[in-house]
């Protein structure tokens, strides 16, 4: 098959199955008509008519399954995913971070992610990368950006450049970020891995959270809050935040205690939850890999055991949230910690472990995540009028979620992406430890 970057105005994709992001199953024997960058019709082979008198490129993926390009609602393009702390990462120059971000953006796009929401990068690195992508100088997914996360002094990701105190500074920062081109506002409502912060304690006070959220909503922008402990979740939900990230239910003393009342409130208010399970599991994988082939060490075994139980508890808590009816979506959190961009599928798999059905998990990384980040007008489903961001898979993920790994081709804005050699593509996937 020809793999020209642009091709004709009209393209028809024939495939075996189609997952449109709307239905709860895959549909047999389908066709998609693309006009320019957009989908102009989806239907059966017989229904789709070739436009008269125009050149049409035909793509015959007769054995393949076609679905919307994935929407990853949580990324960190600056990161390396090699375990380094954000505190270390931020010491690198903006130029180096923008180069690494561009590389990560390509990896992600080649793996089938056609839209991302970025959750925190240094200074203007992602705004500048997006500028280059929009101009066609670089290749990468569509991007919803926060610019920099809003943090308290010394708070989580404060090092990225936006530390504020009080309602006035909070509002001013929201306005500043929007002026720079932010599409939504990210708040670090508790501490996190940042050395000078405490993940078990809230960061902003309620009045500040309210100020940020109100100001963002005034400009019709969504908000999302990093919460690694219960008090932070409660305050954020109370302040009207639209998405809770991580959503870890821990008391200030570190005790684990799922909060039914808060979970119920989250569900009733329709707050989105981005559990970020795999970023935690990837730490376990790294531990296991570094322990493999070495003499057994009691301390390591204990640490690993604690981490494994912690992961099980997190999965269990997400299961409870799902039970309460909370809206759970896929946001990988890569390349943070040990989790590298291009591996979003692992988070989808984790959400199934936590109880999402196959249909729900696939929507969590397409239509539902698109709604959660406010881009469902243009992406997330295969429907007339949407951007032709299309993932072509060798195998149907309805049969096995891991079939999401078998990417055959990626269309972005109606054009097939030149993804390069299979040798290079094989380097993108991170594998679990053996055994």
């Amino acid at each position, binding site marked *: 098959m020809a793999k020209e970057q642009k091709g004709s105005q009209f393209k028809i994709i024939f495939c075996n199955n189609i997952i449109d992001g709307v239905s709860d199953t895959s549909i047999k024997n389908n066709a998609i008509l693309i006009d320019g960058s957009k989908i102009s019709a989806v239907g059966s082979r017989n229904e789709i008519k070739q436009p008269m008198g125009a050149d049409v490129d035909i793509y015959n993926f007769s054995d393949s399954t076609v679905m919307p390009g994935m929407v990853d609602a949580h990324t960190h393009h600056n990161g390396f995913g090699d375990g380094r702390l954000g505190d270390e990462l931020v010491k690198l120059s903006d*130029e*180096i971070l923008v*180069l690494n971000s561009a590389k990560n953006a390509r990896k992600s796009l080649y793996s089938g992610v056609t839209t991302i929401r970025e959750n925190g990068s240094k200074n203007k690195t992602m705004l*500048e990368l997006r*500028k280059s992508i929009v101009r066609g100088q670089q290749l990468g997914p569509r991007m919803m950006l926060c610019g920099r996360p809003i943090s308290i002094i010394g708070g989580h990701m404060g090092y990225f450049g936006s530390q504020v105190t009080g309602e006035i500074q909070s509002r001013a920062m929201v306005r500043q970020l929007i002026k720079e081109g932010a599409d939504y506002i990210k708040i670090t409502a508790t501490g996190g891995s940042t050395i000078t912060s405490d993940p078990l304690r809230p960061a902003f006070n309620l009045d500040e959270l309210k100020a940020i959220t109100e100001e963002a909503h005034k400009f019709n922008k969504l908000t999302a809050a990093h919460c690694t402990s219960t008090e932070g979740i409660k305050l954020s939900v109370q302040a009207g935040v639209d998405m809770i990230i991580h959503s870890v239910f821990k008391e200030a003393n570190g005790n684990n205690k799922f909060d039914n009342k808060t979970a119920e409130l989250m569900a009733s208010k329709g707050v989105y939850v981005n559990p970020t399970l795999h970023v935690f599991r990837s730490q376990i994988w790294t531990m296991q890999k570094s322990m493999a082939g070495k003499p057994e060490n009691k301390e390591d075994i204990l640490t690993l055991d604690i981490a494994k139980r912690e992961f099980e508890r997190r999965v269990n808590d997400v299961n409870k949230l799902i039970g309460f009816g909370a809206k759970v979506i896929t946001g990988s959190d890569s390349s943070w910690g040990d989790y590298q961009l291009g591996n979003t599928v692992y988070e989808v798999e984790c959400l199934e472990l936590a109880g999402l059905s196959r249909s729900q998990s696939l929507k969590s990384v397409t239509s539902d995540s698109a709604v959660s980040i406010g881009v469902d007008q243009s992406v997330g489903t295969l429907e007339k009028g949407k951007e032709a961001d299309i993932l072509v898979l060798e195998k149907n993920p309805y049969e096995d979620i891991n079939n999401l790994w078998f990417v055959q081709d990626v269309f972005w804005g109606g054009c097939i992406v030149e993804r*390069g*050699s299979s040798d290079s593509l094989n380097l993108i996937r991170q594998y679990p430890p053996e055994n």
Partner: protein
Amino acid sequence: MASKKEFKLIKSSRIFDSKGNLSIERGAVLIEDDEIVQVGPEKDIRIPEGAMATEFNYEGKTILPGLVDCHVHLVGIPDGRAGDETAVESDEVLTLQAAKNARIHLYSGVTTIRDCGAKNKTTFMLKEAVKMGVTPAPRMIICGRPLAIIGGHLSYFGIQATGIDECRANVRQLMKEGSDFIKITATGGSTRTSFPFLPSFNVDELTAIIDETHKFGKHTVAHCASSQGMINVLDAGIDTIVHGYYKEPNGSYLYRPEISERLVKQNVYVNPTLHQGTESYDALIEKAKNLPLTDDEQAKVDTFKAGRDISIENISRMREDGVNLVCGSDSAWNYYKMGEFQKEILTHVEIGMSAPEAIRSATIESARSCGVDHIVGTLELGKQADLLVVDGDPVENITDIFNVVDVFQSGNLVDRNNFI
């Protein structure tokens, strides 16, 4: 602990080692890790006892040294914009562009580049990122920012110096930041506030820059778009001149053999950048088919038509007079895209070089002008295993140098389809 050596035996119908005019028929190169350890007829190559070598067999092809482009601008966006417009872009956007250009050049067979001027710290940062493994690039010899006078050519990249002390201070600053050489704009150029036919720095300033650079054991390169600029930098002890146009202050061409004589006597390399103008001219001719040209553009076309033949003639005379001409593309300046260094090599044949001579001007001679001839530029024992494999025989037919089959960089086969 001695690590295991990795050997590669690369066989080919012929090898052009860039040491002379002849090719080695049925030749082979033996590589140990990143170094060339044997070159010669295939039958004479001996793999060390007990060692295993991965074999590559390039039937019908020619192995050459990786190309050395002694004049690039990595931050260039080759859509015809003036440098004045490039310089207003952010450092982040320009660093991304530089990485893209560097990759394209590497994949096209250029394994060493000398960057003759970029904005702020963009090339330093790219070089650092390459070292970290973030992105691929040819071996980079960089100046960071060029030294210009106030309003002088390329002054928008960040350095404008006046007087001996500021000149020396800027050399020291660049050395501190990691410059491999110093670029000087000794006349104006395309920069709007500059005057291409007039000199920029005074000789005392040029002498200060060049002395200070030589003190650090580094070399100097001067942009000269007119004759007086060449005379000034020759007085000051320059190492390489780029462009080297024989132009008088009124813009007219005048070949001055006494300058060529000094270029030879002082052992100065000249990089003529002949293709550059053609690329802009072709782009404008293409544009004229659909849209009327602006007065400015029409003037460019007229100037080009008038100047091209004289340039070729002047550069030919320089060659006849014994000036050492080295090959450098000046891409991605103006319309000249990176990845097409070979087009500049063809111009060297146009001015009278034989094919082997033109190839040497784009490998060992350009390496010499960049001060890296001890590591690259020829295929011989002890050099870095930077190899270019092309289909056909460019010594017989120079355009075969476009037929890139494979590129090896420091002993590694480059995946030219890695777009990550």
